């Protein structure tokens, strides 16, 4: 069949390639320059990324009291979640978190950036879901499954050695804050074999508990996880109220580093192990 005008083969190839390019960029190839702008997504990114995939993490990821992955985070450029900074980093994927302001996410998308939100989690199911989500985004599913099974194994090991009776615990923070239903602290207390009295008193999420109500509930053990250890304020000073020590029979309040549960992640297993080791020795 005679062709009036023959398109050269290399031009055809080029056009085909043009058609395929965007598709390839968003689906087939794993993202090569991933930026995280929040502590919670930072830590999952640091745990799950393949070598060379991380372009930047947020500043808080380097703070050793807040971040479980602080030493690893030190190897990467730091961002402050500022628009100009993020544009200069030329990321092909930005990881944000449930608390990131929606208007900022819209702004990033307006500039043509791909933003994925890692939702907040307050139980093991949410943690597993987030690990799988980030692992899939980074095309590193096997690493995600490995993290999940290691976490589940550690928690199962704790569950196998729990005392028969559940002792009463209250998680007590400066300013009288406590963790009730639907919090990571409640999840960890449950899996470590404690009764969370705050939940039983009807606290939903994070809320206040009156000192008198706390004493009436008569916990066996108090846990705390105050921010910025070594600093001073009236709120922190009040954790040393003598009545708090007396109510638990002079068992001192146990301080759990908050990097284990400020964000949902496999490090919750560390908190569960510490909580499980804190049970009173029954005579």
């Amino acid at each position: 069949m005679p062709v009036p005008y023959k398109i050269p083969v290399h031009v055809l190839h080029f056009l085909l390639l043009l058609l395929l390019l965007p598709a390839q960029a968003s689906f087939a190839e794993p993202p090569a320059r991933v930026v995280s702008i929040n502590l919670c997504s930072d830590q999952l990114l640091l745990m799950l990324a393949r070598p060379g995939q991380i372009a930047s993490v947020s500043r808080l990821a380097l703070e050793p009291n807040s971040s479980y992955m602080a030493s690893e985070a030190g190897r990467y450029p730091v961002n402050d979640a500022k628009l100009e900074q993020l544009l200069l980093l030329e990321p092909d994927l930005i990881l944000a978190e449930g608390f990131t302001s929606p208007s900022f996410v819209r702004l990033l998308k307006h500039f043509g950036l791909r933003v994925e939100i890692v939702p907040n989690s307050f139980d093991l199911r949410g943690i597993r879901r987030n690990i799988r989500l980030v692992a899939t985004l980074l095309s590193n599913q096997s690493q995600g499954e490995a993290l999940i099974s290691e976490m589940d194994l550690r928690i199962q090991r704790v569950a196998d050695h729990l005392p028969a009776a559940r002792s009463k615990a209250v998680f007590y923070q400066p300013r009288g804050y406590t963790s009730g239903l639907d919090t990571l602290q409640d999840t960890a207390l449950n899996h470590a074999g404690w009764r969370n009295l705050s939940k039983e008193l009807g606290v939903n999420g994070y809320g206040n508990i009156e000192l008198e109500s706390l004493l009436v509930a008569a916990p066996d053990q108090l846990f705390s996880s105050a921010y910025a250890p070594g600093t001073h304020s009236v709120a922190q000073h009040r954790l040393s109220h003598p009545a708090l020590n007396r109510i638990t029979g002079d068992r001192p309040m146990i301080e759990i580093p908050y990097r284990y549960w400020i964000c949902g992640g496999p490090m919750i297993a560390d908190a569960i192990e510490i909580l499980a080791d804190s049970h009173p020795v029954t005579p």
Partner: protein
Amino acid sequence: MDTRGPLLLNLTLGFVLTGLFLFSLFVGSNPVPVLQALMDSINRDPSVISLILTEVRLPRALIALITGATLGVCGAAMQGLLRNPLASPGLIGSASGAALGSVIVLYTGWSAVFWLALPFGGMFGSLLATLLVYLLAGRDSGSTTLILAGVAINTLALSLISLLLNLAPSPYAVKEMVLWMLGSIAHGSMQDFWVMLPGTLLGWFLLTGTGRALDALTLGEDTATTMGINLPRLRWRIFLATAFAVGSAVSVTGAIGFVGLVVPHLLRPLVGFQPGRLLTASAMGGAILLLAADIAVRLFPAGTEIKVGVLTSLVGAPFFLHLILKSRRWQP
């Protein structure tokens, strides 16, 4: 001299004070059988109710008592010394200076190293601020000058408190601004009570015996001097006493407003306008006002933590207006 009036007044005040103090032990977020709790603590039975009574409600009532008495008596002494109805710890810088001193000591962690550092910080700040106001206003100053000097120093102290709390390394510091500026006696422990006690007692001790001199001072400085009153000494004594007492109290409770202003005013007609007699009555009156305010704060539904200073200011501000209206009516 008629002593029956003040005696009756002091007895009444003492009676009301005792009643309120005991009543405040019965008020809290949970119903507690107080008598049973008292028996438990006497029998050294470490029950929950005895713990609530002795470690939560008792220190709170004691702190209210001591702080209220301090503010009342220091207000009365200041008003007598400066012969100015607007002189009071809240208005001439003693309280805000004490709060600034305490903030410096507490948030840097010095008070954790040495427990007396907190009241010392309060005393030093209080003395410095009071002296600054006194020097700014000058001796024999009118109300306007004194108030202006007080406003200047108070504003400076409060802005420095705000600045320091914003810069403090503790993430909880910023939210404690209200505590220092309005004052609160919730969550006080026996530790806090022991921290404030020595300084306040020392201040009270310095004030006892100044009554006669204050009475003489109502006749004018020259007359008082000829009557053998050593004015510079009296001045230093009252300034130091206020600094010790207010400094220690504020370092634990924050600057609780209006008690030192309102109480002496209310009681002055009842003691026959004699500054000497006003001291004891104002101490009890201050304690009554603060205990009552703290009981009222506790009666709000649980979970709403209203600072006691909010309430005293709510009572105090209308009184202040009343004072202005009254003084306008008297003006020719």
